[in-house]
Every structure is written in structure tokens, then in C-alpha cells.
């Protein structure tokens, strides 16, 4: 592949190993290492070597595509670079008197001239920019205080004064004059040319690499960037299912579920891992929601080496393992010889027990199965819904037993728990003591086991009504809540030549399809009958032939495929990160640059990516500054473009540079940046032009742009006016300006989206910055939005700390590029509205330039055709993305739900949390398109309508009482919480940006986090005990009961912790026990606690340890790191705390009881 074009770059990349040994080794050379690290297919088995080695290599050949991307100029410059490699360094740099002009003249040697000649605006910039350049010089002159004079000579066409910013280095070297400075640079450069260029043989093109994975099917581990290798899941012996947030924390543990068939049985460490993973998969199979909790017990018995395959294979039969504890013996599965004959005989006994998916002779087994329980459990049809199910989840090994018992015992009870009528006005403690779990769909056990985890995929109604009329009668919203790119503890990753999909609707094969016979399967979404391809007949896990229903695709509802080149429109892009930083006076005052640069320096090696990763920086005030970081330069070079009306890129190909090749320069820049602008007087901000420039810079590849902005954009395209009237902040009537003021940002976002670029916005401002308009840039380009009101590194240290923690997560979390997500559903259902950050490219296709693990989505559904002829509906989300390692992958989630025909069943299956999140999304839309008061009315009406609809179905109802089914009993409480949420509240002073930010959060947060934002959790923490505590990573985490959000629960003697998602408050009562204050807070008594306290000291006492471990546990793996505020009962900060007590009355809003009365009044009307 284009040796001449690529040659300079391999040469350059060949220098990686000497320069940054460790990092490069972990990136590219790791596959060669034998360790259990990221790549586990290192075993001696057949072909595993190809994949990783090709994988390691192809980053280098990516160079060729990259040249290919960056059209003209890119190709041009690769030549001059080549020629320079000989004389570039010695040439210009050894002439110390030449000053800064030299690098430019150097690059204007023969080849490079073409490139410069190509940039038409260059000459005119000289004219127009000279004046403004002076300004820039002065603003930047502090950099080289002694060198202000030479600047005049720097002014070449480029207006690129090449500010040699390494001020400090000058000082430290004790070389005061600039001349000396450059001499120094010459010295430092002199070492470069001496490095030989051992040009690597160009690796095979990655296409070939893609093809080398021809091997029938390998199951590979996910390469998480932050993969920790070891299975932390193993260390959870607790039988309790981990709460959703905890599962996050387990994410890093996934270390390859995989590699069974090809992987190394000979390597003890990997093998151990394998088994563990495998058994954790067993656990997952047993119980999808209970991922990898109870793996340790099975591991021990399955460890003998020769048996490892058996263990592995046994692992894929959940029932076998669960029934016969941990003895994989019954399934010998001897040699890797896929003999078709013995296979059908071996699992024969189990077939009888398991009709679904096993016995293909039977037609549509899925249906058979599903209909039986429906018919048997007639009207309520959901025997012992939540209660028994949770029990079953907790003891996955006992699923079978408990199911039969539960079925027997509870079937007789006339009404399921979720339908038990609750008199809301009578029930004083409506909030349960334990966190609310997602209801489990009323499916038979096999389907339930296979079903998608509610953390990734939830539906507001777990019983889908048969017709739209029935849905209308129920007055409940129908929709899906998605968290598709969630960090998972384990995930089957499948490589195969053919990804089996339905030929008409393109659905991926999933656990809910039915096999008509060995050769045909019936799509569960469109009911088309498809052929089973030959390759699919072979099962690499069992190494058997003729069991398509036991392939991992059919055994797991969440799988990831490695996609072939059919799924690429272009070669997978590298990870590209661009940082666009506001450096106007306001920004420098706030001091965020220090925090950002520090975080970046710390996490530079942890940025997800491979050896192709590229990074770039831009800063802007009233002009736009680019930074040339091309390797070989002695210092980063600053290029200023002052023509903001027609932005151009001064040197298109050296602004985004390879992270590993230019790491030293990047570090120099990051060290220098915080001090570069300290004396700036520029108050304007040209955000729009800077974004346009960023778009131009990113459009050849796509990637992620992180924009830091601290004020209202005031110059150039996209400038905004202040629209907020501070007097209206607490108005109860109209809240205006919730929508964008201009379509500039939306258009730009769509352009970015088209070029696979996502823009993440960090807004750190103390004043109104029109987030409503600015947010569009992220909303439609699939970015994310962070907002730090009144950020100041000195005056507001808690915000600075929060930014730092958020950045850590932001920089190191997983990322997927050039993604699209398609949601399919069973024929008869249709999606009509989408919520989240993306662009809907066509009816069911969401275009996501980037996808991150913290992005949630919501979809509204309607029932177009009656679903009478089916008893199950399925939803499938397929997320196609390029991983940061340049692999094209498809993550598929499939959810299966029953269809019901009676209203009572619909109510029995309400998932109240999902419903409230969907309603919140709808309300945001409504308040932007119509008005806030409309949205509030709609929320209240949602409660009124659904409760009155329920009331009319229950005949024997005393009309004076407000009755709700048990599944809906929290509905009014949550709606009230929504009405008091920042996004929707009225009457309380709320800054417009805060409100808009809350709305953005509602739109793009996944359900678990959104719920905390809507309804915070309150715990009493002064009496934490180990009762019911869970064990996480050898830490004991106490589980105090939830308290209702009311001041009546706050006693003066206690201390309470409130978890609001993005903030923690610890409220200390006036007469709180001094022991607690001393043991946990480290102060002798209440009076001595300071007003602003954001940390718990690490004290060596039991109660401190408990409190800290509880808080750490709550905090783990939140997208936004919560800041802890210790609030004293008397401090002014307590209003912050008290406004979250939503059951209480405030001046402007109902208490919970009043709200119930209001609802009741409305119903009776």
C-alpha cells in the first residue's frame, strides 16, 4: 500500500519504541507478551497469533489511509518531511542566529513550498493581520519578555510568530537571551538525527488483517482501554445482586470472557482467568441481571488444567452447571473435533427439560413457551411478580427450584404483588427501604434468563398492550430507555465471517428467534424464515456441529460482533482528540487551564487509542491560535489566525499530531499553557469561528472535539446576546428562552455529525452563557455537555475538584467513533420520537459521531397494528462503532417482552422509573417546543390520567380514596419530584443556564443516574452498621435503609447523607452525637465543623471507615463525579440541601400530601 507515501511515517513511527518504550509496548507490542494482560488469545492455539499481531501492526499502515484522508496537502507534505529528515534538524537549527524564522524557512524548502503556496489566504493575512498581530504579540509577549523585539522578524506569511513558549526552560537553563534559547534548541535537536530509522516492514494492510480473522469463530475479549486484567467480579462472593451502580464498578473486570476455543490451555494464568470468566458467564447465563457475582465458588472446582475445556464448554449450558453445582464432567466434549454425530445425542436429556431453543423439531418453541404461562396464570398471569423474582435473582443457582416452588406457591394467590391496590393518601411511607429494582418481565424462566439486563435496556411497560386502544386506555407512556454502551463486566465478543441477520429486516440473530429446524430460523421481528448459514452450524464453544441454537449469539441477549469490512464505509478511523480552549481574560481568571492541563498530563497515557491516536490543541480569544506540534520541532509552535470571518488552517497536517510521536512536545505545551495567557486583556470570545476551524481540522478523520468555554461568545459567527432577565428567574409564569437563539450551532453540529466529529462542551462560567444555544453543538453531534457554574479554581475549590474528577473519567472512559445505532422492533410497533444526543438520520437510524459509556437514550413507541397474533415482542438495538483501537464492532442488545390483552396486566407490568424518565424527556421537549407551564401541566395530567384510568378499571373502589396499583405507587411521588426538579420548577429562583443544563441532563443521562437526579436518595449515616452489608473488593459496604425525602426524617441527633447524583450532601444535625463528629469528621464538636467542608478525613475508626466505604461505593463510576458537601444545620448552604426534600412543602410548591389531594381533586372532577 503506497510505499512512497507511507514511507516517511513508518520511518517516523519506527522511532516510537526507543522514545517511549513502555507505552508503545503496551499499545502495539503487547500481543507478543505472554501475560494475561489485554490480549488473551496469546495461547499456542491455532491462529490466534494472526489477529493480535496484525492488530498490532496495522496502526502503522494506517498512515497510508491518513495520507489518503488529508487530501492534497497531506500528501504534499509527506515528501518534504522525508527530505527534511535528513537535513532538517542539522540545517535550520544549528544556525542559532536565525531565530524563529528558521523553522518556517526550513519547511519552505523545495517540497514544502507547494503546501504553503496552496493556502491562498496567507498573503492577505499578512496585510490584515499585522495590526492585530501586534495585539497578539503584546498579549503573548510575557512569554518571552526579553524577546519582544525579535518578534518583528518572526512575522512571516504565516503570521505565525512561532512563540517559543517554553519560557521556563529558558529560565531553568539559565540562558536569558533568545539566541541562546535557540541555540539550546539546536542542541536538543542534535540528538534526534542520530537516531537511526529502522524502518519497519510495512505491515499488511488492515483489510487483510480483517480477513485473517477468517477462523470460523473466535470469541475475543473486549479490549477495554482501562482494562485491569483481573476479574474483580470474582471478589464478590455476596449473594446479593449488585445494585446498578455497582455493576459499573465492575466494568473493568471484564478481561475477556472469551477465547475459549483458541486460547491457551497451557498458560496457567490465562487459563485461570478464562475459567473465571467463563464461570462468570455462567452466572450471567443463569441470571442476566446478576452479572458475574458468584463466579468464585465454581472456579475452584473447575480449575484442573486438562479439564479446562470441559469447564469452559460446560459453562455455556447454564442449566447443567446450575443444576449440578460445579461439575462439568457430564459434558465431556473431548477433542476439538466438531463431529456432528454425537452432538445431538449428548444434550438430548436436557432438551426435554428445556423446550425453548433446544428442541427444534417443535415449531416456534418460543411461542409455545411463552403462551403456556400466560394461559395458566390466567387473569393476573404474573405469579408472584416482583417478590419471587428478586428472590430468584439473588440465588441464581436455585433458579429452577425456586421457580417451580414459586410458581406453585404463588400461582394460587389471586393477585400479583404489583397489582395490589395501594391507597396513596393513607400510606404514609410510600418509599420502600431498599432501592427500587426494575420489574422483571413476566416471561417464562428460560426467556427471562436470556433477556437483556435492565441496566442496558428497559421498557416503560414490561407487559406490552395488545393494541393502541388498550395503551390509550391505560394512559401510560410506552417507550424504551437505552444505555447501549454501558461499561460491562463481561460481554461475549464474537468474530465470525458471517454475521447472521434476517434477510428482510436485517435483525441480528438473537436468543428469541426460533429454529424451525437445523437449517432454518424464523426472525422474531418480522417473522421471515431465514436459512442458517453453514458456518453458523459449527459451535466453537462446544466444538460441535449442528447446534446453531447453542452459539453464543443465541445464548446471550447482549453480544458484540467484530464487524467485517462490509460494515465500513472507509477504513476505521484512529482516535482523534482535539481540545479547543477559551483563553480570554475571563477564562484565565477562572483558572481552569491549570486543572485541565494537569489532568491531561496525568491521563495522557490513558487516553483510549492505539498507536495511531492523534491529538491537537487550539486556543481562542478574539483570535484563534493553533499549535504546531509536529515532531521534530524543538518547542510547540503557536500559529495565530486573526481572520475570524474566514477561518483557515495554517498548516493542515501538523496541527493534529500523533500522540506518541510528539508526546514530548505535547507535554511541553501542556506545561506551558496555563501560564501563557496570564496577562491577557482580551475579553472577547470567538467561539463560533473556533468551532468552524475545529470542524475543518477534524473533518478528514472525525473524532472528538472538547470545547472549553467560559463566557457568552461575543465575536464572529455564532455570537450570542444575553437573553436572561434576572428578575424573571423565580417567575411562576413564563420561562422564556429555553430554545436556541440561533441555528448556527445546530447547523455546525449537523456538519460535524456528517464528518463523524462529536463536540463535547465544557461550560465553566459564572455568568449567563446561553447554554440553550451552545448546547446544540453537542446535542446534535452526539457529544456531551458539562456545566460548572461559577467555576473558580481559588474561590470555588469544590468545583475545581469536580472538574478534575470529571475530566479523569472523561479522558479515560471508553469511546466509540463513527457510530450509528439502529433500533428495531417487532412488526406492529413503531418508534416515533427519540431522546438523547444524536442526529436522527433516517426513521430508525441514529447517527452518533461518538458514543461514550455515559450516554443514555430514550425512544417513544406506538402500536401501529394490533399485536393479537403474537405473544412476545422484541426490541433490538444495534450499535455499530469503531473502537478506539480501530476495530469495527457491533454491540447488539435484544429485549423480549410479553404481550397482554387486559388492562390489569398492563398496570401490573409498569416500570415506574422508566416511565418517569421517559416522561421527563417528553416534558423537556414540551417545554422547549411549547412552554414550561404546558410541560408541568402535562406531567400532572400524566398522573391524573393514569390513576383515574386505573380507578375506572377497578370496580370495587371507594371513590373517595386515591388508589394506585402497587407498581404505580411511586408514580405521584416521582412526578412531584420532577416538578420540583431544577428543570421544571417554577417559583424558586433558578438561573436559566442551570435550568437548561438540567434539561440537557435529563435528555442524555442513562436511567440509573437520571433517577438519582430526579429523586435523590437519603440515608442516615450516623449509625451505620454491618447489618445487610455487602462486600465489594474486600471492603464492607454498609447498606443503610432509604429515608423519605422529608424534613420530618431529619432528627437533630442524626447525620444524613443525600445522594443527588451529581452532589452528595451530609447534613449534620445540631445535637449530633459528638462521637460521630469526632470519629467521622475529625472535629471535636458541632461548633468546630467548618462551613465549607468537602472531604471526609481518613480516620482510623470504624464509623469513619464505614462512612467512607459507603460513600466511595456510591461514588464509583458515576459519569459526573459527585462533590461532597458537609452541611451544618445552621449554615446558609442548607437551603441547597433542603430544596431536595421534595416531600415537603415549599413556598412555591405542594408537599407530597397536598399533591396527592390535588391529584385526587383532578380525578374527581
Amino acid at each position, binding site marked *: 500500500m503506497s510505499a512512497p507515501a507511507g514511507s516517511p511515517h513508518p520511518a517516523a513511527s519506527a522511532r516510537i519504541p526507543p522514545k517511549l518504550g513502555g507505552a508503545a509496548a503496551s499499545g502495539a507490542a503487547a500481543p507478543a507478551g505472554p501475560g494475561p494482560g489485554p490480549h488473551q488469545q496469546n495461547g499456542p492455539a491455532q491462529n490466534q497469533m494472526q489477529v493480535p499481531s496484525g492488530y498490532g501492526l496495522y496502526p502503522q499502515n494506517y498512515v497510508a489511509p491518513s495520507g489518503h484522508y488529508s487530501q492534497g496537502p497531506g500528501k504534499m507534505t509527506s515528501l518534504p518531511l522525508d527530505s527534511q529528515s535528513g537535513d532538517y534538524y542539522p540545517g535550520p537549527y544549528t544556525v542559532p542566529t536565525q531565530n524563529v524564522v528558521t523553522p518556517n524557512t526550513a519547511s519552505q524548502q523545495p517540497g514544502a513550498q507547494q503546501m504553503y503556496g496552496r493556502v491562498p489566504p496567507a498573503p492577505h493575512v499578512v496585510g490584515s493581520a499585522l495590526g492585530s498581530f501586534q495585539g497578539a504579540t503584546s498579549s503573548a509577549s510575557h512569554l518571552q519578555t526579553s524577546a519582544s523585539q525579535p518578534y518583528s522578524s518572526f512575522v512571516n506569511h504565516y503570521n505565525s510568530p512561532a512563540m517559543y513558549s517554553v519560557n521556563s526552560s529558558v529560565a531553568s537553563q539559565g540562558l536569558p537571551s533568545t539566541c541562546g534559547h535557540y541555540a539550546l534548541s539546536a542542541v536538543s535537536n542534535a540528538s534526534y538525527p542520530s537516531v537511526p530509522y529502522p524502518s519497519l516492514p510495512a505491515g499488511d494492510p488492515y483489510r487483510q488483517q480483517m480477513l485473517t480473522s477468517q477462523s470460523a469463530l473466535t470469541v475475543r475479549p473486549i479490549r477495554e482501554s482501562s482494562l485491569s486484567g483481573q476479574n474483580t467480579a470474582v471478589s464478590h462472593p455476596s449473594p446479593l445482586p449488585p445494585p446498578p451502580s455497582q455493576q459499573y464498578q465492575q466494568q473493568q473486570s471484564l478481561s475477556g470472557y472469551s477465547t475459549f476455543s483458541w486460547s491457551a490451555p497451557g498458560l496457567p494464568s490465562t487459563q485461570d482467568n478464562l475459567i473465571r470468566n467463563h464461570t462468570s458467564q455462567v452466572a450471567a447465563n443463569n441470571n442476566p441481571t446478576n452479572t458475574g457475582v458468584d463466579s468464585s465458588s465454581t472456579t475452584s472446582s473447575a480449575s484442573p488444567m486438562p479439564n479446562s475445556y470441559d469447564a469452559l464448554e460446560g459453562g455455556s449450558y447454564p442449566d447443567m452447571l446450575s443444576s449440578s453445582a460445579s461439575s462439568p464432567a457430564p459434558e465431556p466434549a473431548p477433542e476439538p473435533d466438531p463431529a456432528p454425530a454425537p452432538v445431538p445425542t449428548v444434550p438430548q436429556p436436557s432438551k426435554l427439560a428445556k423446550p425453548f431453543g433446544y428442541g427444534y423439531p417443535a415449531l416456534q418453541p418460543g411461542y409455545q413457551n411463552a403462551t403456556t404461562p400466560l394461559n395458566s396464570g390466567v387473569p393476573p398471569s404474573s405469579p408472584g411478580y416482583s417478590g419471587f423474582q428478586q428472590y430468584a435473582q439473588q440465588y441464581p443457582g436455585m433458579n429452577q427450584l425456586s421457580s417451580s416452588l414459586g410458581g406453585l406457591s404463588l400461582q394460587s394467590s389471586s393477585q400479583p404483588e404489583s397489582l395490589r391496590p395501594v391507597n396513596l393518601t393513607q400510606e404514609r411511607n410510600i418509599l420502600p427501604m431498599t432501592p427500587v429494582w426494575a420489574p422483571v418481565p413476566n416471561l417464562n424462566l428460560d426467556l427471562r434468563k436470556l433477556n437483556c439486563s435492565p441496566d442496558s435496556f428497559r421498557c416503560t411497560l414490561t407487559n406490552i398492550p395488545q393494541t393502541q386502544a388498550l395503551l390509550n386506555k391505560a394512559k401510560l407512556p410506552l417507550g424504551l430507555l437505552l444505555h447501549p454502551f454501558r461499561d460491562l463486566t463481561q460481554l461475549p465478543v464474537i468474530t465470525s465471517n458471517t454475521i447472521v441477520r434476517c434477510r428482510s429486516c436485517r435483525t441480528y440473530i438473537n436468543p428469541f428467534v426460533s429454529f424451525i429446524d437445523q437449517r432454518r430460523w424464523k426472525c422474531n421481528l418480522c417473522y421471515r424464515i431465514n436459512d442458517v448459514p453453514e458456518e453458523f452450524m459449527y459451535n466453537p464453544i462446544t466444538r460441535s456441529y449442528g447446534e446453531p441454537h447453542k452459539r453464543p449469539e443465541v445464548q446471550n441477549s447482549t453480544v458484540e460482533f467484530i464487524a467485517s469490512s462490509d460494515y465500513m464505509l472507509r477504513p476505521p478511523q484512529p482516535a482523534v482528540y482535539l481540545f479547543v480552549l477559551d483563553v480570554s481574560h475571563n477564562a484565565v481568571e477562572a483558572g481552569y487551564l491549570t486543572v485541565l492541563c494537569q489532568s491531561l498530563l496525568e491521563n495522557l497515557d490513558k487516553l483510549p487509542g492505539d498507536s495511531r491516536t492523534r491529538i491537537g490543541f487550539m486556543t481562542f480569544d478574539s483570535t484563534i491560535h493553533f499549535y504546531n506540534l509536529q515532531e521534530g520541532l524543538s518547542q510547540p509552535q503557536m500559529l495565530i489566525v486573526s481572520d475570524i470571518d474566514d477561518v483557515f488552517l495554517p498548516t493542515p497536517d501538523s496541527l493534529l499530531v500523533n500522540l506518541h510521536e510528539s508526546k514530548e512536545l505535547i507535554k511541553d505545551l501542556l506545561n506551558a499553557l496555563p501560564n501563557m495567557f496570564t496577562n491577557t486583556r482580551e475579553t472577547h470570545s470567538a467561539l463560533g469561528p473556533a468551532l468552524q476551524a475545529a470542524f475543518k481540522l477534524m473533518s478528514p478523520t472525525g473524532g472528538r472535539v472538547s470545547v472549553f468555554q467560559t463566557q457568552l461568545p461575543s465575536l464572529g459567527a455564532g455570537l450570542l446576546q444575553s437573553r436572561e432577565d434576572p428578575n424573571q428567574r423565580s417567575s411562576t409564569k413564563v420561562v422564556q428562552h429555553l430554545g436556541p437563539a440561533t441555528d448556527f450551532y*445546530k447547523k455546525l453540529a449537523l456538519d460535524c455529525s456528517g464528518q463523524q466529529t462529536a463536540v463535547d462542551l465544557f461550560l465553566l462560567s459564572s455568568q449567563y452563557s446561553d447554554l440553550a444555544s451552545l448546547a446544540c453543538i453537542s446535542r*446534535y453531534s452526539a457529544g456531551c455537555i458539562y456545566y460548572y457554574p461559577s467555576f473558580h479554581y481559588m474561590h470555588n475549590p469544590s468545583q475545581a475538584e469536580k472538574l478534575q474528577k470529571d475530566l479523569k473519567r472523561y479522558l479515560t472512559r471508553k469511546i466509540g467513533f463513527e457510530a450509528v445505532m439502529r433500533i428495531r422492533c417487532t412488526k406492529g410497533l413503531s418508534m416515533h420520537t427519540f431522546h438523547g444526543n444524536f442526529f436522527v438520520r433516517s*426513521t430508525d437510524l441514529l447517527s452518533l459521531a461518538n458514543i461514550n459509556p455515559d450516554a443514555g437514550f430514550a425512544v417513544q413507541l406506538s402500536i401501529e397494528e394490533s399485536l393479537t397474533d403474537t405473544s412476545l415482542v422484541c426490541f433490538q438495538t444495534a450499535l455499530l462503532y469503531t473502537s478506539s483501537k480501530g476495530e469495527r464492532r457491533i454491540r447488539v442488545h435484544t429485549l423480549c417482552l410479553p404481550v397482554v390483552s387486559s388492562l390489569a396486566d398492563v398496570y401490573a407490568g409498569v416500570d415506574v422509573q422508566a416511565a418517569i424518565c421517559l416522561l421527563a424527556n417528553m416534558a423537556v421537549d414540551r417545554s422547549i417546543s411549547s412552554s414550561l407551564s404546558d410541560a408541568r401541566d402535562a406531567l400532572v395530567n400524566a398522573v391524573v390520567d393514569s390513576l383515574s384510568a386505573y380507578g375506572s378499571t377497578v370496580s370495587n373502589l371507594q371513590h373517595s380514596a386515591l388508589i394506585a396499583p402497587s407498581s404505580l405507587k411511586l408514580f405521584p411521588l416521582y412526578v412531584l419530584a420532577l416538578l420540583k426538579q431544577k428543570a421544571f420548577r417554577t417559583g424558586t429562583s433558578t438561573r436559566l443556564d442551570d435550568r437548561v443544563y438540567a434539561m440537557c441532563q435529563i435528555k442524555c443521562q442513562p436511567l440509573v443516574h437520571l433517577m438519582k437526579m430526579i429523586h435523590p436518595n437519603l440515608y442516615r449515616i450516623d449509625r451505620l452498621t454491618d447489618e445487610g452489608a455487602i462486600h465489594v473488593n474486600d471492603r464492607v459496604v454498609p447498606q443503610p435503609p432509604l429515608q423519605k425525602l422529608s424534613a420530618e426524617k431529619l432528627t437533630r441527633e442524626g447525620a444524613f447523607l443525600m445522594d443527588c447524583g451529581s452532589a452528595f450532601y451530609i447534613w449534620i444535625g445540631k445535637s449530633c452525637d459528638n462521637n460521630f463528629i469526632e470519629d467521622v469528621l475529625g472535629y471535636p464538636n458541632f461548633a468546630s465543623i467548618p462551613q465549607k467542608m468537602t472531604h471526609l478525613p481518613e480516620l482510623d475508626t470504624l464509623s469513619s471507615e464505614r462512612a467512607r466505604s459507603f460513600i466511595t461505593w456510591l461514588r464509583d463510576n458515576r459519569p459526573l463525579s459527585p462533590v461532597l458537601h458537609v452541611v451544618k444545620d445552621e449554615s446558609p448552604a442548607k437551603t441547597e440541601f433542603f430544596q431536595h426534600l421534595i416531600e415537603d412543602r415549599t413556598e412555591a410548591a405542594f408537599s407530597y400530601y397536598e399533591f396527592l389531594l390535588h391529584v385526587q381533586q383532578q380525578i374527581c372532577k
Partner: protein
Amino acid sequence: METVVFVFSLLDCCALIFLSVYFIITLSDLECDYINARSCCSKLNKWVIPEVVGHTIITVLMLISLHWFIFLLNLPVATWNIYRLIMVPSGNMGVFDPTEIHNRGQLKSHMKEAMIKLGFHLLCFFMYLYSPGLDLPVAEAREPLSKTPYTTDPHFEDGGTLVTCERDSEMAK
């Protein structure tokens, strides 16, 4: 004078019919995923103002030439067109916004609107054609003029059938 007014209205009305058909075709293309939302909306937004202008001209012309009935008939539609244009929120990219069009059944309502307009313009077309104002020219030019609807018809029918076909096929899916 009368004749000029009606001939002009007739031509204008033809253009509006074409425009409506174009709207319907483009929207149904979007419905069937033949084009993406972005290009669909930019295509359609281009023609929103010409449509408003075209229709306002007819309305004003009728007012000036004192055809009260036709004026009153046209007035609500013209008002709706202008209202729709004015009420576009400042952050949207036009009457058709690519980020909104798939939400809340907007696509369907746009489609419905285009259909209604098509019907309305057809009605108007025949009204202008057989109106007393055109008595003379119609008598003289019965042949060519009666052909006019014929020549437009295929287009309409094309559009019409195309749409129904697609809808049918969609149903079949």
C-alpha cells in the same frame, strides 16, 4: 384584464401543484429512507418561500381584481403558510428542521399538509380554468387548455400513484 388575471393564476396554480407534488415525493422519500433528513429538509426549505410568495400573489391578485369568493377561499391557506413561516423557532433551520422532522410525528403531519394543499390547489386550478373570467380564451383555446390539465395530470398521477405505491409497499413491509 380579467383574462390576464386568470391566466396568470392558472399558471401560478400549476406551479403550486407541482410544488406540492414535489413536497409529497420528497417527504415520502424520507419516509422510505431514500434520502436522509438533512438533504430532504434543505431541499424542501428552499421551496417554502417561493410557495408562500406564489400563493400570496394569487390571493392579493384576487383581492385587487375583486373576486371575493376566490379571495376568501385562498385567504386561510395563505395565512396558514405565512403563519407557519413566521412561527419557526429561532433555533430551527426552517419550516422543515432535520433534527425535528422524525420526532412527534412531524413527518406525517407535513405529509398530510402537503396532501391537503395538493387537493386545494387542484380545486383552485379547475376553478380558475372554468371561471367566467376565462370564458373567452377557453372557448377559443379549448383544445390546448383542456390539454393543460391533461399534461399536468400525468405528473400528478405519477406523484399520486408513486405515493400510494410506496405507502402500500410500506404497509406490506
